């Protein structure tokens, strides 16, 4: 709501309070100030002049040469407008004057004497748009005859005066008017408010009014006028409309808009002679009915729409927009001003359904003062008498302004206790009365009857807020609650931090991406066709919630490659999305049910497991000096996942290790991809992008991505998990031996390492892979894998004999899987 400060001051006694202070008062007391506008700001040296002569420009058809005077001095200038006569008063920007910036953010424009086709123009005559007094740029401003000749225009019209734009809170529809804002300020500042007196009607019978839909309309009032001059409104009306962002149309329409801004009650003006009957019926529309609205659109109506009809047809879409056929035109003689109280949710529904939002619908759907229609209609009639020379006719109404709002009983002690500050009952009562409430005392309780315009005050909590607001939030002290609770992170929550730590310590940076995706995605963990689709996606090409973290991470990789980085490693820890019942649930439910979310009716929501995603591309160390040639490999990602599994899995239980199985997937390198299994269930994936896929995405190889469902590992981390137990440290020194096993290529390292472990038996403390060899010494199709074993025994010092025995045993185990021990 745009609030011109001068208009505000005419309603509430602000005692010359500076604008900055008004703004502070507003924003500290529940009137949120969006910005301060100053339409016309920058205008200086524009004066009221009289046109004393005009003649065609000797050298240009569309221009004329004009002489103006301020009573003493005559000035000659060139003008492109034709909407004035000799004798009219106009706004002359003299040489040296400034007018507001003609583009947003620009500087005020200074006028100089300028030759136009051989005639010197000493300044210019201003249009409304040039001075930001409205949209009109068809002609120049013609001022009323009583404007003081020679006066500075800023003394005649409030050009450049401040307008405060207030963001109206959704429960405060009453703030959609100057009166509403003024009333609020008067209550806050405890100062006086002056509401315009309006005429009281004394005759009726201009139209027959019938409300057929009483659940949609509580009050309907009309007042007829005759002989209204339909034409441009006076400048003071046009300027206030302009300040509030509304276009001036003609006297009648402008007056209805003016009253709407002033009092918050939208009005409509019918050409009374176009109404058949004349009678008006307020009813629900029927299927198939249509109406051509003021914007010349044909609207298909529905039975949920409220309409106003005359004896034969629909003439207005209630509360949203009037009909074109009964619109006030230049030929109109008799005007019927209509104001009504419509049901907010009906107006909201119609406005949404037709995607038609008007100043009227905006106010009706937030609720207008149910006792405001008669006053607004009367105010409009009074203004039409004033600005359009109209004569008042007959007043009619149906329905009524309604009974008082229900009362709310509040315990003032409880209000004080809720706020944490003692506000005496009398003080509370005073605050509420300032807001227009009627307050009665009932044995210590306050019985509060809110004023008609405060539909939001229905419960004690609402009243408590009003007390707090008028008392001042700033007077509430700061204390800490004495609630006795124990806080802290759960084991699961601590584990989630460990997951991040594992990825970070391996050199992966954390990223956050937007989890939206398109039709084609590179699949990560347990692929499926299941997609969670969005009704109103943020972008048309990403209509789904991401079923994997891979695409988001590749987007980040792409960005960094584009930026010229030689390599990048990133991770994201977030939820991925699949519809309920998706095959991914097979991977999750093997470990528990904690990942499932349900709605209020115990229906399962989309599956959205927490997932760790990794991506690495290119050089590992970047510009490092000792490992400049090293690049990221799938092993780096596998290492992070193993670390995560190790940190989160139950201790000393080898069945919780991640197992890998080679896999071929679309988009991935057939020899560098593996699924990760936990206790036989697929929970993860690591793969290098296929060269063709990497090339398609314009990413230099290697590009490796991986994903791990974390829910299975979190699942068992309930708070009573048995803590890890210390193991006795062997005091005898360890013995280190190396063994190399040669085997056909299809025997995996995992099998060879298992053979070595079996051979070493209980003596094995730790085992490392350290070399791989292919070549003459092992023959074609074979490779040799070298491992280092550290052996120890709790009860004795190991000898060379022990080493020999282990080597022999490893040799025997190797033979079982088709490998041989190299000596």
């Amino acid at each position: 709501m745009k609030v011109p400060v001068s208009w505000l001051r005419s309603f509430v006694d602000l005692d010359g309070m500076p604008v900055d202070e008004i703004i502070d008062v507003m924003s500290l007391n529940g009137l949120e100030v969006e910005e301060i506008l100053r339409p016309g700001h920058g205008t200086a040296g524009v004066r009221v002049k009289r046109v004393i002569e005009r003649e065609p420009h000797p050298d240009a058809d569309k221009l004329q040469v004009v002489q103006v005077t301020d009573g003493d001095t005559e000035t000659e200038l060139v003008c492109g407008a034709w909407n004035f006569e000799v004798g009219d008063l106009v706004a002359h920007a003299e040489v040296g004057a400034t007018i507001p910036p003609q583009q947003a953010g620009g500087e005020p424009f200074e006028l100089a004497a300028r030759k136009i086709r051989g005639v010197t123009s000493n300044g210019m005559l201003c249009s409304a748009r040039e001075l930001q007094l409205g949209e009109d740029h068809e002609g120049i401003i013609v001022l009323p005859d009583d404007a003081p000749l020679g006066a500075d225009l800023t003394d005649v019209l409030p050009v450049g005066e401040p307008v405060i734009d207030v963001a109206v809170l959704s429960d405060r529809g009453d703030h959609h008017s100057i009166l509403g804002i003024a009333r609020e300020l008067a209550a806050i500042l405890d100062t006086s408010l002056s509401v315009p007196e309006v005429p009281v009607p004394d005759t009726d019978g201009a139209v027959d009014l019938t409300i057929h839909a009483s659940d949609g309309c509580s009050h309907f009032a009309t007042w007829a006028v005759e002989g209204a001059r339909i034409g441009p409104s006076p400048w003071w009306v046009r300027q206030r409309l302009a300040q509030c962002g509304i276009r001036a149309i003609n006297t009648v329409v402008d007056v209805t808009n003016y009253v709407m801004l002033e009092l918050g009650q939208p009005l409509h003006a019918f050409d009374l002679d176009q109404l058949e009957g004349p009678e008006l019926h307020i009813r629900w529309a029927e299927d198939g009915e249509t109406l051509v609205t003021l914007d010349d659109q044909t609207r298909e109506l529905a039975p949920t729409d409220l309409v106003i009809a005359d004896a034969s047809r629909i003439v207005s879409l209630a509360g949203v927009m009037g009909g074109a056929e009964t619109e006030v035109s230049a030929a109109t003689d008799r005007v019927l001003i209509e104001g009504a109280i419509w049901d907010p949710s009906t107006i909201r529904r119609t406005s949404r359904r037709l995607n038609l939002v008007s100043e009227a619908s905006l106010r009706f759907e937030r609720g207008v003062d149910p006792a405001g229609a008669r006053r607004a209609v009367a105010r409009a009639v009074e203004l039409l008498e004033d600005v359009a020379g109209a004569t008042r006719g007959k007043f009619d109404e149906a329905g009524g302004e309604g009974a008082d709002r229900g009362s709310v009983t509040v315990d003032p002690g409880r209000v004080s206790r809720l706020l944490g500050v003692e506000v005496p009952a009398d003080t509370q009562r005073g605050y509420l009365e300032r807001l227009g409430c009627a307050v009665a005392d009932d044995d210590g309780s306050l019985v509060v009857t809110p004023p008609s315009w405060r539909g939001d005050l229905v419960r004690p909590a609402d009243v408590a807020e009003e007390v707090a607001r008028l008392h001042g939030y700033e007077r509430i002290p700061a204390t800490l609650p004495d609630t006795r609770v124990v806080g802290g992170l759960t084991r699961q929550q601590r584990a989630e931090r460990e997951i991040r730590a594992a990825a970070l310590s391996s050199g992966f940076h954390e990223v956050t991406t937007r989890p939206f995706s398109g039709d084609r995605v590179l699949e990560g963990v347990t692929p499926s066709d299941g997609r969670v689709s969005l009704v109103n996606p943020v972008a048309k090409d990403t209509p789904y919630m991401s079923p994997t973290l891979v695409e988001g991470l590749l987007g980040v990789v792409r960005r960094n490659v584009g930026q010229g980085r030689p390599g990048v490693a990133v991770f994201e820890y977030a939820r991925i999305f699949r519809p309920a019942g998706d095959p991914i649930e097979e991977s999750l439910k093997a470990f528990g049910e904690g990942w499932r979310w349900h709605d209020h009716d115990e229906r399962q929501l989309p599956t959205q497991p927490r997932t760790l995603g990794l991506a690495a591309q290119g050089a590992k160390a970047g510009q490092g000096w000792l490992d400049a040639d090293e690049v990221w490999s799938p092993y780096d990602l596998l290492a992070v996942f193993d670390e995560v599994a190790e940190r989160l899995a139950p201790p000393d239980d080898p069945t919780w290790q991640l197992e890998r199985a080679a896999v071929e997937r679309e988009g991935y390198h057939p020899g560098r991809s593996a699924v990760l299994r936990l206790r036989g269930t697929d929970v993860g994936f690591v793969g290098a992008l296929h060269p063709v896929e990497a090339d398609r995405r314009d990413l230099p190889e290697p590009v490796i991505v991986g994903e791990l469902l974390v829910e299975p590992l979190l699942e068992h981390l309930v708070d009573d998990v048995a803590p890890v137990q210390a193991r006795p440290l062997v005091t005898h020194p360890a013995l280190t031996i190396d063994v190399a096993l040669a085997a056909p290529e299809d025997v995996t390292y995992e099998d060879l390492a298992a053979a070595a472990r079996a051979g070493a038996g209980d003596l094995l403390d730790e085992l490392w892979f350290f070399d791989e060899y292919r070549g003459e010494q092992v023959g074609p199709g074979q490779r040799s894998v070298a491992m280092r074993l550290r052996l120890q025994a709790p009860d004795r010092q190991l000898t060379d004999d022990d080493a020999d025995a282990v080597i022999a045993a490893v040799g025997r185990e190797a033979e079982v899987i088709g490998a041989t021990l190299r000596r």
Partner: protein
Amino acid sequence: MTDLAAVAEEALAAVRTADSLDELDEVRVRYTGKRSPLAEAQSSMRDLEPDQRRELGQAINEYKERFQDAYDTRHAELEAAELEERLEEERLDLSLPPRRVRPGRPHLITQVLDEIVDAFVGLGYRVADGPEAEAGPFAFDLLNIPPDHPARQEMDTVYVDDDADVVLRPHTSPVQVRVMLEQQPPIAVVVPGRVFRADTIDATHSPVFHQVEGLLVDEGVTMADLRGTLQAFARAVFGPGRDVRLRPSMFPFTEPSAEVDVSCGLCRAGVGAADPDACRVCSGTGWIEVLGAGMVDPFVLDACGIDPDTHSGFAFGVGAERVAMLRHGVEDIRHLYDGDVRFLQRF
């Protein structure tokens, strides 16, 4: 017969001039080894008369002693010199960049979320979590936002195409509902999490952002408690000495409701008038709008099975992006979502 005395002079000279431990060893062999004048003298002993033998024996002992003394001295000198030489060779230019394995950095938003969460954990709060694709009633209805409430439109919710009423949660508040439905007071939880709005991406808007929701419900919780708690939060996250200011506002799920400002840490003053040139952070007002808060609306308590006649509570919601941008001078919210490593490494 060899004149050991003469040989001794020669041997000692050779020891003293030996240039390396290897050469010294050669000298030792030459003058005391199997074919040395010493060995010759020893082997000649058995042919001598006892008197002569005693005399020679003394000479041999004297020779051995003198040689050993000289040898030990020289050996120590050469060993020290060689160690010195090795140390010189092993000298490193320690101004070279260290061989640093750079760990990754947690995302700025994670850092902010963890920091806020830790501050509240210190005040006795637990941490709660909920789904991001959330049931409409939890996101709206139970929070006192009925279907035709204007706030529902204002939130620009993204809706999931589902038979049931499912939305991408536009705030973390549904987790309040889930907690209250599961647990009786006293309740003190914070909820860090990702939320969604149908916003177009630009420098200040993101369809995805993060909030931390806080909820405390007990008997006799006051608005003063809310203020004190938010002040503790402001000081933990923005720095000591910060103050908070509450301004009346409207949220469907709280009553009374407040917008909460934190005092500006850059200009530390507030020059009075709003002037963008006066302070980059607060435009000279001295206050920065940081979060929304209020006393839990009785409707919400009641809808979640808590008696509003015996219990009260407060709730607040902080935008993590806003905190991060304000505190670290991030001018474009997109930087938080682009994953440019230069940005990530900075924090």
